[in-house]
C-alpha cells in the first residue's frame, strides 16, 4: 500500500510564512490549525486520511531544506525513524528532496497558471531534480525534453468523503463594450442569483474553469463556442466556474475579471446582453449544489480532480477532458482520470483560435 511504511511530508514554506508552529515537525492537526489556502488544506487532509487508512505514520516538516547533512540530518532521521517515504507538497516554486528516502511529488496547485509556470522554471533550473522523484501524486507531469524526458510514476490519491460544503454563489454572465472593470462592476451591482435558478434547466453543462485554462486562448475559444451554442438551446444551462487565484484570499470581482478577460481576448464575438442560460459559479459546486438534471462535466487543464470523491463524478452522465488538438493525452493520465471518475472520460479537442482572435478579441480592449 502506498505510504504504509509512513510518510514524511515537506510543507511549502511560502504558504506558511505567517505560521507560528512549535518546531519543524508537526502533526496533521497542527498544520491544519494554520492559515492555509484551500488547495493546501485539501492536500493535507487527503494525506492525513490516506496515511491513517493504511496505518502509517505521518509527519509534516516545515523547512525540510535545513536538514542538509551531519548533525541536523541525524536529528531529523532520529525522529523520522522507519519512515521510508518523503513527499514534497509543492506549490510549484520549490520541490524538496530528502536525502536517503524515496522522494515523491504532490503538486497541489495545478490549477494556477503561475504555479505551473514556476514548476516548469524550476525543472529547467534544476534538471536533475525530477529524475529523483519516484512518483507524483495526482499529476502526470513530464520533465525535460526528448530522450531526457522523465515522468515520475503517477499515483492517484483521491478524496473519499464529503469534500466540502457548498460555498458557491451564482452570478449573471454579462459583459459590455465599456471594459472589463465596468462589466464586473455591473455584475457586482446585480448581485447573486437565487440558487434555485439552476433547477429550471433539464440539461446542465458545468465547466469549472481553472486559472491555467483561463490563460489558454484555445480553451477560451472553446468556452465561447459553448456559449454561442447555448444561445439557441434555452432549455440548456451552461454553468461556468470562475477560476480561483493562487492566494488565500480571492474576491468575486477578481475571479470574474479573470474569467471574462480570457473570453474577451480570445473568444471572438459574444452578445453584450445578459445571457439567461449562462451562469457563473463563484466556487466549486458542492454535491448539494448540483441541480437535479442531466449533467455534463467538462474538465479543463489543471483541474484539481483529486479534491472530489468518485461519488461526485458519478452524478454526471458525461465527463469530458479538454486537450489541445496537437497534444496526445498521456495514457497514464487517462488511466488515472478513469479511476478517479469511475468512467473513462471523453476527450474534447481544443483548436487554437484564428490569428485575428489571438491578436486581441473583437476590438473591445
Amino acid at each position: 500500500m502506498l505510504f504504509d511504511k509512513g510518510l514524511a511530508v515537506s510543507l511549502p514554506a511560502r504558504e506558511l510564512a505567517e505560521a507560528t508552529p512549535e518546531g519543524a515537525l508537526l502533526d496533521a492537526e497542527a498544520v491544519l490549525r494554520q492559515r492555509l489556502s484551500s488547495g493546501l488544506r485539501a492536500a493535507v487532509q487527503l494525506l492525513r486520511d490516506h496515511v491513517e487508512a493504511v496505518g502509517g505514520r505521518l509527519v509534516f516538516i516545515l523547512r525540510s531544506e535545513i536538514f542538509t547533512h551531519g548533525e541536523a540530518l541525524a536529528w531529523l532521521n532520529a525522529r523520522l525513524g522507519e519512515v521510508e517515504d518523503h513527499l514534497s507538497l509543492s506549490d510549484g516554486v520549490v520541490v524538496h528532496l530528502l536525502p536517503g528516502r524515496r522522494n515523491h511529488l504532490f503538486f497541489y496547485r495545478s490549477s494556477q497558471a503561475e504555479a505551473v509556470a514556476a514548476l516548469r522554471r524550476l525543472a529547467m533550473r534544476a534538471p536533475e531534480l525530477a529524475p529523483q522523484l519516484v512518483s507524483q501524486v495526482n499529476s502526470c507531469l513530464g520533465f525535460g525534453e526528448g530522450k531526457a524526458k522523465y515522468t515520475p510514476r503517477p499515483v492517484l490519491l483521491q478524496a473519499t468523503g464529503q469534500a466540502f460544503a457548498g460555498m458557491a454563489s451564482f452570478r449573471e454572465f454579462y459583459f459590455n463594450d465599456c471594459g472589463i472593470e465596468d462589466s464586473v462592476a455591473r455584475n457586482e451591482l446585480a448581485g447573486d442569483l437565487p440558487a434555485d435558478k439552476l433547477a429550471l434547466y433539464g440539461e446542465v453543462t458545468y465547466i469549472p474553469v481553472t486559472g491555467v485554462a483561463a490563460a489558454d486562448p484555445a480553451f477560451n475559444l472553446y468556452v465561447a463556442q459553448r456559449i454561442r451554442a447555448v444561445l439557441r438551446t434555452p432549455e440548456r444551462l451552461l454553468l461556468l466556474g470562475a477560476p480561483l487565484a493562487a492566494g488565500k484570499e480571492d474576491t468575486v470581482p477578481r475571479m470574474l475579471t479573470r474569467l471574462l478577460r480570457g473570453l474577451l481576448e480570445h473568444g471572438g464575438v459574444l452578445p453584450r446582453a445578459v445571457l439567461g442560460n449562462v451562469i457563473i459559479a463563484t466556487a466549486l459546486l458542492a454535491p448539494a449544489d448540483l441541480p437535479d438534471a442531466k449533467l455534463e462535466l467538462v474538465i479543463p487543464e489543471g483541474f484539481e480532480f483529486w479534491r472530489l470523491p468518485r461519488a461526485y463524478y458519478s452524478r454526471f452522465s458525461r465527463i469530458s477532458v479538454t486537450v489541445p488538438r496537437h497534444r496526445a493525452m498521456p495514457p497514464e493520465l487517462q488511466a488515472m482520470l478513469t479511476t478517479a471518475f469511475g468512467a473513462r472520460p471523453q476527450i474534447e479537442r481544443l483548436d487554437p483560435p484564428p490569428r485575428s482572435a489571438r491578436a486581441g478579441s473583437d476590438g473591445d480592449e
Partner: protein
Amino acid sequence: MSKTKRRTLKTPAIARGAKPRLTVDVGPLLETFWTGIPVFTRRLVQALLADGRVDLSYCFNLTELPAAKVHAALTMGTGAFLRNHYEAHAYASYRPADTSAPLLYPSNKKVAGVSPREASVVHDISTLVMPENHETANVDHHMDSLAQELASDELVLCASEATQAALTTYFPSVAAKTRIMYQYVDWPEGFALMDHNLPRPELGRYAVVVGTIEPRKNLSILLHALSLPELRESDLKFVIIGKVGWLVEGFLEALTLAQRERLIFTGFVSEFVKYRLIAHAEFMVFPSLYEGFGIPALEALSLGKPVLAARTSSFPEVIGKAGVYFDPLSVTEFAAALAEIEAPARLVELTTHTRVQAAQFTPARMASPVLEWLVA
C-alpha cells in the same frame, strides 16, 4: 594539514618552480564596503598569495586588473579605488584577461565556458530551496544559469559540507567534482591592542547577533522568545549588528516597547566596532534558518565566544562543540537553549572549545582545494 595536500604539493611541476597559473575573477572586490562575498574573495586571494605557489592574475568582466591595484585594495580593505581606476583607465590601459589560464570565480559566474579550466564557488543554494526568502531578481540571478555554470566547471567549490550536500542532492551529477572550501577569520593585527586600550562598551550583559536583517536570519524567534515569562525578566540584551536587508518591511516597526528595550540595532558598523561588540559579548546568537557557512559564528569562536545556533545546515560543522543548538522553528527550544548557554558553568565549558574550533579554519585550508586542482 592533510597527508593528501602534502603529497600534492611535492609534485614535480611545483618542485621545478613552474608555478601553475590562475586567474581569479575578483569582481566582488570592486565593492566599496566589503562584507560577505567580497570578504570571502579577499581571504581567498590572500590565502593563495600567502601560499605563494600559484602565479596569480586577476580579472573582472574578462578584463585583466593590474595586480598592484588589486593588492592595494587588499591592503586598504575597500574596492573604491580599484573600481575608480578600472572605470577611468580600462579603455586606455587595460587588456583582456588571459583566458588560457584556469579561471576561478569566488562566487557565481557571469559567463560560463570562457576558459578551458574553470572553477566556481557555491556558497549556498538557498535561492533554490527557500526562494521565498529572496527577492525575485536575486533568485533569477543565481538560478537561471546555475546548471550551465556547474556543467562548465571542472571544479565546484562548496563553502561547507552543508552546501556540498545540498548541492549534490539537487545536482547529483556534479558530486565527483565538488570540493569543500572552508573560509577562515583574519582580524587585523591591531584590533586586539586597540580594543585593549579602550573601555568596555557600556551595554551591560549582552549577546550579539550578526547579519543582515532579512527573513532567512529568523530574528522573529528572538522576538517571540522575549515575550516568554522566563525571558521577560532577564537583564540580558541583544545587540543586532547588520544593515536592514530585504523583505522585512514592518518587522522593525512592529517591535513593542519591551522588545525595543532589550534589542539594540547598530546598523552597518566597521570591522573594528564589530570586533569589539563580539569580543565583549557573553556569547553569539545565530538563529538563521539556513546558512552556507555562517562566518559570524567563526568570528565569535575566534574571539572566544560560544554560539547559540540553530540546528541547521552548516552550523554544527562550523561551530562544533562550542555551541548549543536549537530547532529554529521552536521558541520553546530556543528559550531552553538560551537558558543553557547563559548558565555560567556551561558557558565556561563551551568557551574552552571556541578557539580550538576556530583554529581548524586556516588560510592554508582554504587554499588547499585550489592547489590540488591546479596540479592535478
